[in-house]
């Protein structure tokens, strides 16, 4: 079928949608009369931008494709950390539909910001990544990713899992604000694995890609040398608590890592498997600084909404110049638009007398 014109592409999309849908039903669904749709698909009438948006939504195609016949260059490609169901062995992202809405908002924020500098080359192996991120990277994990690799990290509530995507060569990792820092660390590492392996174009993610990303993440956070040095067979419960605190991982992630390395889980680990990591820490980890509730502080940090500084800075500049709406900036900062301390320039409206003259309501002075 010819798809040279917008009308022809709409016709094609209607034909592709399903044989059970008639043009009449499509017209009704998008608020056009059957005659208007028929004339528009035969290039006898133009489409309004509202009609195209509704048609794209209803027919499940991109507006950009309807307009140009080409895929949208800004189409979001991403990888997600899948949930693993131990009972069925299935991997899925049950919150994907809701997450799509949040990801669309993130995509909008980046699109409005314009081109930010691309990320640096992302190391392909965990060892190379550790080298780039430097020692003790797990505590300032997000800062190191942004400072050393220009990989952005967004943390927002309501996401069901971690995602990674690229916008004009800049990688973005989005994680839910849950306060669960060990889950967050593993998500960051998991998404880095997808980025390093170039999985962002694979949709849907394969089982093999998910498993590989988990292995890569475990290796990054718990290198073999560290596991060996920890001497797990003789580890005490206090030693286990120190391990999960220092490496920023959970009890279960630790158990999985030992299993993957062929190291038998010690009794203390088997006793704690399936229990809350925070419970272990609160009972058996001793904060080096007395009086400081470091566990709550770390949890609080991992529960905070955050957006990368370069993204925020770009929005502030554009809002101040009047180039974009302040609403996305307000959303990122979680404040009302009127509460923003960023002011767009004052723009004088037209002169009412001039309009009156122009409309012939007053004589020319």
């Amino acid at each position: 079928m010819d798809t040279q014109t917008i009308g022809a592409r709409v016709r094609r999309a209607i034909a592709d949608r399903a044989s059970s849908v008639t043009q009449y039903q499509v017209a009704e669904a998008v608020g056009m009369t059957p005659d208007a749709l028929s004339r528009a698909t035969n290039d006898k009438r133009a489409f309004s931008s509202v009609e195209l948006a509704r048609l794209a939504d209803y027919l499940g195609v991109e507006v950009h494709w309807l307009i140009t016949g080409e895929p949208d260059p800004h189409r979001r490609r991403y990888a997600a950390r899948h949930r693993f169901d131990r009972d069925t062995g299935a991997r899925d992202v049950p919150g994907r539909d809701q997450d799509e809405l949040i990801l669309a908002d993130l995509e909008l924020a980046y699109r409005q910001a314009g081109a930010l500098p691309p990320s640096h080359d992302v190391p392909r192996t965990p060892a190379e990544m550790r080298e780039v991120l430097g020692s003790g990277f797990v505590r300032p994990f997000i800062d190191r990713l942004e400072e050393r690799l220009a990989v952005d990290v967004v943390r927002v509530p309501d996401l069901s899992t971690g995602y990674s995507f690229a916008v004009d060569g800049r990688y973005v990792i989005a994680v839910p604000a849950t306060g669960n820092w060990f889950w967050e660390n593993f998500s960051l590492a998991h998404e880095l694995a997808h980025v390093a392996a170039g999985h962002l174009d694979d949709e849907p993610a394969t089982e093999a890609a998910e498993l590989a990303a988990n292995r890569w993440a475990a290796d990054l956070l718990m290198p073999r040398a560290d596991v060996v040095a920890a001497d797990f067979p003789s580890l005490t419960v206090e030693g286990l608590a120190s391990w999960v605190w220092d490496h920023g991982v959970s009890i279960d992630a630790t158990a999985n890592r030992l299993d993957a390395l062929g190291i038998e889980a010690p009794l203390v680990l088997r006793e704690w498997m399936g229990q809350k990591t925070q419970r272990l820490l609160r009972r058996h980890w001793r904060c080096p600084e007395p009086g400081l509730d470091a566990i709550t502080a770390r949890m609080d940090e991992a529960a905070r909404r955050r957006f990368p500084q370069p993204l925020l800075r770009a929005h502030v500049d554009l809002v101040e110049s009047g180039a974009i709406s302040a609403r996305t900036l307000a959303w990122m900062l979680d404040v009302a638009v009127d509460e923003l301390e960023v002011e767009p320039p004052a723009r004088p409206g037209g002169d009412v007398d001039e309009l009156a003259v122009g409309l012939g309501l007053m004589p020319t002075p």
Partner: protein
Amino acid sequence: MTTILFPDNTVLINFALLNRVDILDRIMRGQGRWCAAVSDECAQSAKEVGLEAMAAYPAILGSPLFPATPAEHLEVRLLRDRLVGPGDGPTRHLGEAETVAIISGRQIDAVFATDDRDARMLADMRGITTYTTWDLLRLAGKVKLVDPDTLWGYVLTLRARARGNPPGVHDRRSFDLTWFG
């Protein structure tokens, strides 16, 4: 030289809320035009209770202007991106974006009436003069289409309907000073 006035749906709604579509008609004097997206938004709004008066606009504003080329459609999408915010649906702000794209792209000697601050900013950056509902009401007062007492009543009505407030107006005295001083 005559001026063409493109209103957006915020302005059309306000005059309909006042049940004074006739004032806008008399202000525009046959020089009002609209874009297809605004015409579409107007048709949707006219279905709402209290906005039935909007059904009169097609006869006043005539056949709408449509984006004519893929380039014009892409320009609409680009401009819309500057106006939308998180959570906006797929058709939000298309009326304002389409109007600005068509006026600026076709170099129409026209002004744009909208109460959306971001849309006014966008139009201004494209060199399009903008007006608000308040400007048009004030104009109606200046050319004596409406007397001051009635206009003050309209201000109170729109304010009560959460349609904003004229700049600098907080009571009748400031209204008289600002609009007729």
